[in-house]
Every structure is written in C-alpha cells, then in structure tokens.
C-alpha cells in the first residue's frame, strides 16, 4: 500500500516537473535520454564484436604460423614446438559429458520435486538453497574438490576397480583421486543449480489445465510429469541442458585444480589426469614466453569461445521456443 502511494506521489511530481521543463524548452532531453539508453544497450553488442575481433587478431600469429596443425596434434608442449589442442579439447568434452550425465537427471528430479511434490514454501527454501550453489565461486569448488572429494575418491576408486566395473578399462590406472572423474563430478555440482532453476521455471509454465486433464484420467504424478509436463516443456528443458553445457565447457578454476595438468597426451581412463581448454590457458599462460606461445593460447581461447557461443545460441533458440509455446515473457 505504501509503495502505491509513493508511486502516485512520484507520478504527480514527474508531471509537474514535466510541465516546468517543457516551458523551459528542454526539448532535447528526451531524445538525448533515449540515445543514452540505446548506446548503453548497444555496448553489450559492441563488447561482443570487440571480443571476437580481439581474439581473432591476437591468435592470428598462431593461425597463420600453425595452420590446422593444432587441431590434429595431441600434445601441448611449446618448448618442443608442439601446440596441440586435442588434449585440451578431449578433456573439455569428456569432463562436460560426465558433468551432464550426472547433473541432468539430478536437476530434473529436483525440478520435479520443486514444481509438483512439495508445498510452495518448502519448494522455495529448497530451490533457493540449491540456487545458492551457483553463488559459490569456482575456486572454492576447486579447493573443496581437492581437499574433500579427492581423498574420498582415493578410497572409492580401488573399490570400483575391484568390482566388475573395474574390468571395463574406464577405471584403469593408479587411483590417485585427481583426474577426469573428480573434475566431471565437481562440474556437475556447479551446473546443477543452473539446469535446476531453468527446468523448474519451464515446468512451472506448463498450464495447470493440461496437467489436470492427466490427473483426471487417473494418472499418477510421475506419469503426468513424464508424459505431459516433460513433453510440454521439452524445448525449455533442452534449453536448460544446453545452458548448463555451455557453462560446463568454459569452467576454469575448479577444473584447473582437479584435472592434474597433463598436457602432452590423452587420458587413458576416467582415473587418469588430463587438461581442458580453460585449464591449459589458465595453467600455461604464466609459462608462455614467446609471442607464438601466447598467440596459440589465445587461439585456444578463441576455439573455446566459438564452442560456447554455439551452445549458448542453441540454448537461446530452444528457450525462445519454449517461451513462444507457453506465451510467457519470462
């Protein structure tokens, strides 16, 4: 109530001021204000163009000198003139894949709980708590991973190796805890809040009438969710997954801590060590001495940028589709 009165007071104040200003021939104020806002809105687009230009410009030396060689060379070892990107690309994709395998089912289960199964108040408390995971800085995830998750994995990994799973080859090698697996696990926890929040929102946009029709036919909650809500919200959920994917691909600090920084070969198994694009940039930049080293690292950054851009755009397309379908502006 109080705010509405304040609004009305504000409005009439604005009116008086408006009349006064028109009398003083301040006709330029409106177009100027409009242009100010347009410029500021365009700043994001300009920054994006500048970013692309700067990345291309600074990796030009590497692009012209190395050509396509980095794309079919494994080892990153500038000291012997090997600027392979494959070890980094491989690590980025494998850790992201592990993260999505873990995070997507978890996120969908949590979203289902938040939308369908619990009281709205509890739903908000749980939802906010899980959203808070997104506020924890990457570096703290990395430290937590190194000091908490890795010691646990050092105990669990020998046990996995002793089960039939161990014979698959996925879990071969010394169980030292650091490597692809912990990086994937931590990434999963880091993208969980993003996928959960967007999935919850799109599941919440499914019209109640449609769901009630399902319940009216005698369906259980799970059946309604699986056959009606998930289908209705499919494009939105796809958007959520791609959004999480884009985040996981570019994550740096946590992964730099946990991957183990092996740059010159591909990892043999989930327990082996490796690198990712962002980890290579973060860990090797300090050692880059020659201009070509720096340029090659920025080229890696350009590759990462282009990959994440594609996934972000795909996510935006799916989310826009979900929005059109439900006719909401959210």
């Amino acid at each position, binding site marked *: 109530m109080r705010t509405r009165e*304040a*609004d009305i007071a*504000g*409005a*009439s*104040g604005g009116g008086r*001021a*408006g009349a006064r*200003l028109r009398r003083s021939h301040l006709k330029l104020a*409106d177009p100027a204000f409009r242009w100010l*806002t*347009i*410029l*500021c*809105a*365009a700043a*994001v687009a300009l*920054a994006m163009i*500048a970013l692309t230009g*700067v*990345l291309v410009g*600074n990796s030009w030396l590497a692009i012209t000198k190395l050509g396509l060689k980095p794309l079919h060379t494994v080892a990153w070892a500038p000291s012997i003139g090997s600027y392979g990107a494959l070890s980094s690309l491989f690590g980025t994709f494998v850790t992201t894949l592990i993260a999505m395998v873990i995070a997507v089912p*978890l996120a969908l*289960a949590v979203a289902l*709980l*938040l939308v369908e199964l619990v009281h709205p108040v509890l739903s908000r408390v749980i939802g906010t*708590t899980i959203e*808070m995971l997104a*506020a924890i*800085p*990457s570096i*703290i*995830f990395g*430290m*937590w991973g190194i000091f*908490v998750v890795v010691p646990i994995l050092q105990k669990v990994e020998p046990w996995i190796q002793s089960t039939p799973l161990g014979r698959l080859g996925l879990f071969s090698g010394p169980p030292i805890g650091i490597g692809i697996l912990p990086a994937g696990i931590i990434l999963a926890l880091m993208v969980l809040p993003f996928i*959960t929040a967007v999935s919850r929102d799109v599941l919440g946009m499914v019209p109640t009438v*449609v769901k009630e029709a399902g319940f009216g036919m005698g369906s*259980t*909650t*799970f*059946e309604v969710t699986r056959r009606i809500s998930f*289908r209705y919200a499919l*494009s939105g959920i796809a958007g959520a997954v791609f959004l999480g994917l884009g985040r996981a*691909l*570019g994550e*740096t600090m946590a992964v730099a801590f946990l991957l183990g920084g092996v740059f010159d070969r591909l990892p043999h198994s989930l327990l082996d060590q490796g690198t990712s694009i962002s980890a290579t*940039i*973060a860990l090797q*930049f300090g050692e880059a001495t020659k201009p070509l080293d720096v340029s090659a*690292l*920025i080229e890696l*950054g350009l590759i*990462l*940028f282009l990959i*994440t*851009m594609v996934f*972000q755009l795909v*996510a935006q397309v799916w989310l826009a589709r979900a929005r059109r*379908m439900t006719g909401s502006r959210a």
Partner: protein
Amino acid sequence: MSADTMPGPLSAVPLRPRSVARRRVVDRLVTSLAWLAAAFGVFIMGWIVVTVVGRGIGAINWAFFTQSPPAGADLGGGLGPCIVGTIVLTGFAAVIGIPIGFFGAVYLSEFGRTGRIATAIRTITNVVLGVPSIIAGLFAYAILVKPLHHYSGFAGSVALAFIMLPVMTRAAEDVLNLVPNELRESALAMGAPRWRATLGVIVRSARAGLITSTILAVVRVAGETAPLLFTALSSPYWLNGLFGPSGFFGGPVANLTKTIYDYSTSPYQHLQQLAWGGALVIIVAVLGTNVLVRLVFQRGK
C-alpha cells in the same frame, strides 16, 4: 518434431491395461528419488559451507585483516592487501558495468520492448552471459596488458566489468518489466517527458528490485578468479596510489581469489591455512550478501 511442440498425441499413450499397484510403486519410487536428489543438492551446499568454515575459521584473527602476506616461508601475516584489492577491483568494475547495464536495461524494457533491435540485443546479452570468465580475462589482457607491457588492476576491473554488464542488464530488465503499464501511462498522461517518467516513476517504483539486481551483479564477480589470472595478477603489497608500480593502473593488484589459488596448492601448511581463511571471507561475503538481499528486498513476493 511434432512431439517437441505438442503435448503427446493420444496414440503415444499405450492403452494396454497396467497394474495399478505397479504404477503406484513406480510413482512412489520416483518421488523418493526426487527427494533424494534435492536432499543431495542441499547436503552438498551445506558440506561446502561447513568445510570452508571449519578449515578457515582458524585463520581469522586481527592480523588476518590487517597484515600483508608473509614473505617466503615466514609464519604469520594476513591477507589485508588482498581484501582491499578485491574490494577495489570489484568496485571499479561496478563503476563501469552497473550504469551501462542499467541504462541498457532501461532501453530494452522502456524503448525497445519487442522490437527487432531489442530482441537482437537481448539475445546477444544472453550469449555474453555465457561467455566463460577466462575469455573475459584474455580479452582484457589483449587490450590492456599486452599493449602497455604491464599487468594492472584496471585491466582486472575491465575483465570483471565485462562479466558484470550482461548480468546487470538481464536482471534489471526483468525487474523493470514487472512495473505495471498503467504507471507508465499515468506518468506520461500527466505530461512528464519520457526521461522523467522513466527515472522518476518507473525506476523509482522498481527501486527495491533494482537495488537487489545491482548488489547481486556486483557480488557475482567478487569471487571470480579466472579473469584476474592474466590481468590484475596478484601481489603481496598494499594497493598504493594510481600509476606507480603498486598502483591501480600501474601494476599487479593484490586480490583474494588469485592469492587463494596460489596458496591453496602451496606445500606450506600456514599458507594453506591463509587460503582457507580467504575462502571463508569470500564465502561469507558472497553467500551472506545473497541471503541478506533476498531476505530484505524480496520478502513481499
């Protein structure tokens, strides 16, 4: 493709009879799994906070906030310069990112709306929102560090501002979109010029939400490390002046996140202890602000 856009056609539902008991069991099972998943998420959140508090609290004392990091293997010292540095870096990033983000949001919600330009800018903003933070660091390195041949706090702030800008724009636009149209119309009907109606009425009525957006956007970048790796770097010294070797524009600036990164992998126990102390300071600041802001400003919603 039709399955994506339409709730499944009837034919997708198998019509063979299924046991009610089995369906109920499946439903119960999924419900318990959903509870388990949520409990897992909440548990992880708690576990991280407990770990950081448990390991970091021992480092917190007066010296931690007032002294410089120890040299070499010396004991004692604190992260005073790093705390100051992080505040300055984040603050300057806010000076760049918040006003631009705010006015950009005003354009999107008040002038652009559903126009083609606004839609394009909105999409670009969403994409920039997903640019990895390390890329922002490379960008600032390429435009401010490489040409000037020295690291600087300013470059770090620019990288952070790049990350802050789209966060602010999206959040502020969402808030401004909640302002009822009647309010805009009544302000304009009373003869207020557009800028006055916008700043005096619309922005004023969305004040609480805008403050929330601003605070969250600023706090969002305070814990970033990757953008600072090649820009502000870090330093054990207090920030001193503007253009000198330990000035904001002149050289590396001490900051919490990069220092935590360096110390947490250090072989020295006391440096690790300092790193956990720094982690505690960051997590208290970031999570504390998030919780407080939600409690104070979003109670009514």
